[in-house]
């Protein structure tokens, strides 16, 4: 009985171990090792922290990271604010078919490739795009207006891309709030605002945090949207990584940037968790 049980457990665990080991852990170890090798000449490398030093000494790189992080936080906040009323409506007002419909409609755009969505925004925002065209048609502006290739467009695109990942955990969290608890909140004399502030939002905190973490990480790690919508002024940190790997062939430097992205963004998430007093495990399960 005992050995048989151990064998079963072993077999059950094998896929997880292979998956996590071969596709997650070892590759990250490889990145770490790679990031610690400094090029000294053609095909000659030595161990060192030069690649990391490069990040901190070259303002370009850490500024890019800071810019990416700050914009991501901004995107996360905007997404949260935009998504909350929607999630609340889906979770607590809509019933039956309507509810399923609204949720499904939220999902649909996100199953279509990110590139398609971005293409859509490009077609809307560009100087020769639909919005500019309509504005000219209606005479609101005299000449074409360019709304693409700036930070606003990037934020718009990223918020759009993050919405679903905010709405679903939020709606899940809000859904689990018993209707009678909310009714009790009103019954005891609470106004809408009081009920929202003291009952609904505290209850939804795990969902808010889960959604924020996911949106933040997705945004920080996004590549296509900032590249395609962003203007001449903005580099996203992932573009730096891509550039190091692909256009500069400098894998060690790219690996160092990758590690830094991972560590620094995790640190931001961790700080966020500490501030909100949530734990990662419970939070992610919420999603």
């Amino acid at each position: 009985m005992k050995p048989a049980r151990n064998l079963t457990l072993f077999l059950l665990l094998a896929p997880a171990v292979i998956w996590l080991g071969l596709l997650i852990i070892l590759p990250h170890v490889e990145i770490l090792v790679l990031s610690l090798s400094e090029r000294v000449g053609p095909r000659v490398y030595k161990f060192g922290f030069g690649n990391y030093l490069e990040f901190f000494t070259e303002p370009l790189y850490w500024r890019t990271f800071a810019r990416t992080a700050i914009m991501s936080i901004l995107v996360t906040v905007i997404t949260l604010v935009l998504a909350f009323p929607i999630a609340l409506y889906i979770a607590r007002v809509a019933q039956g078919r309507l509810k399923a419909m609204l949720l499904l409609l939220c999902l649909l755009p996100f199953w279509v490739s990110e590139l398609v969505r971005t293409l859509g925004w490009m077609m809307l925002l560009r100087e020769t795009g639909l919005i500019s065209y309509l504005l000219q048609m209606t005479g609101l502006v005299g000449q074409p207006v360019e709304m693409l290739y700036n930070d606003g467009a990037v934020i718009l695109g990223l918020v759009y891309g993050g919405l679903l990942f905010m709405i679903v955990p939020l709606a899940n969290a809000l859904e689990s709030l018993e209707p009678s608890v909310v009714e009790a909140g009103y019954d005891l004399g609470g106004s809408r605002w009081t009920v929202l502030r003291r009952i609904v939002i505290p209850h939804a905190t795990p969902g808010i945090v889960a959604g924020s973490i996911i949106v933040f990480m997705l945004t920080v790690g996004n590549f296509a949207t900032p590249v395609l919508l962003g203007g001449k002024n903005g580099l996203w940190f992932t573009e730096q990584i891509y550039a190091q790997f692909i256009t500069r062939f400098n894998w060690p430097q790219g690996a160092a940037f990758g590690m830094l992205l991972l560590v620094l963004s995790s640190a931001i998430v961790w700080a966020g968790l500490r501030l909100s007093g949530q734990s990662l495990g419970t939070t992610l399960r919420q999603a």
Partner: protein
Amino acid sequence: MNRPSLLWKLYIAAFYIFLFAPLLVVAIFAFNASPFPSPPWKGWTLEWFIGNGSVFGKPGILMDPIWLTSIGNSLKVAVPVALLAVLLGTVNAWVLERAEFRGKTIVAMMMLWPLVIPGVILGISILAFFSRVANSLEEVLQTDLDLLRPGLPLVILGQLSFILTIATLIIAARLRKFDRSLEEAALDLGASRAHVLRTVTLPFLSPALVGAGLVALLMSFENFNTTLMLVGSDPPLPITMYGQMREGATPAINAISLLLMLGVGGIASLFALTSKAQG
């Protein structure tokens, strides 16, 4: 209290318009008889789907081998990814929900981790790791293992690395709802373990298995970040689209996007139907 205010309803409406505006624009301009996907409207055409290139200089997507091979490549990736995700996801879900062993919380946390790793990093780390493995093996075996070099097999592995987490979560969520006394009841009535699995547990899980498979299929089709780093000489659809978009949009991209939307819509309705059956 339950009645939403007008303002709220208007906001909801505006939100859904916002959500679908870009997709609608993409879809509509797939039919614009103009070499550029931008206004003004020059009339309807199907040229971007089935044209042979004589009108706008570029053939329609259904005539263009670039798009057709990309779709083929995407399928070559998505189908194995979906199958593996369901198969391994089921085992993982079992580990998460049923197995008792030391270090389980760590394993559970690890399984969630890929969700928060940026796709680009997943891509480069897998690329770097498998390059090293391939290089080492090459020295030992004196042959080059194509499998470990950028290409579809590596794309499959790269996508699987995080899609597996999602499949695991979907299946585990369903498994958590499973009333274990059902299994015990079946055992109690004399069924063998295999019989219980076949007649009770799997039928219960099947909506989640189908759901996880469809989600995996969609995510694989959609994935760009990870795939970009791992792709070899045979690009899946998003990579081709990205390349073409950098070249400057043509309505061909709109056309392929519309096809994608239709595919997604179809799968989503399938999904809705199966989840209705389970509810």
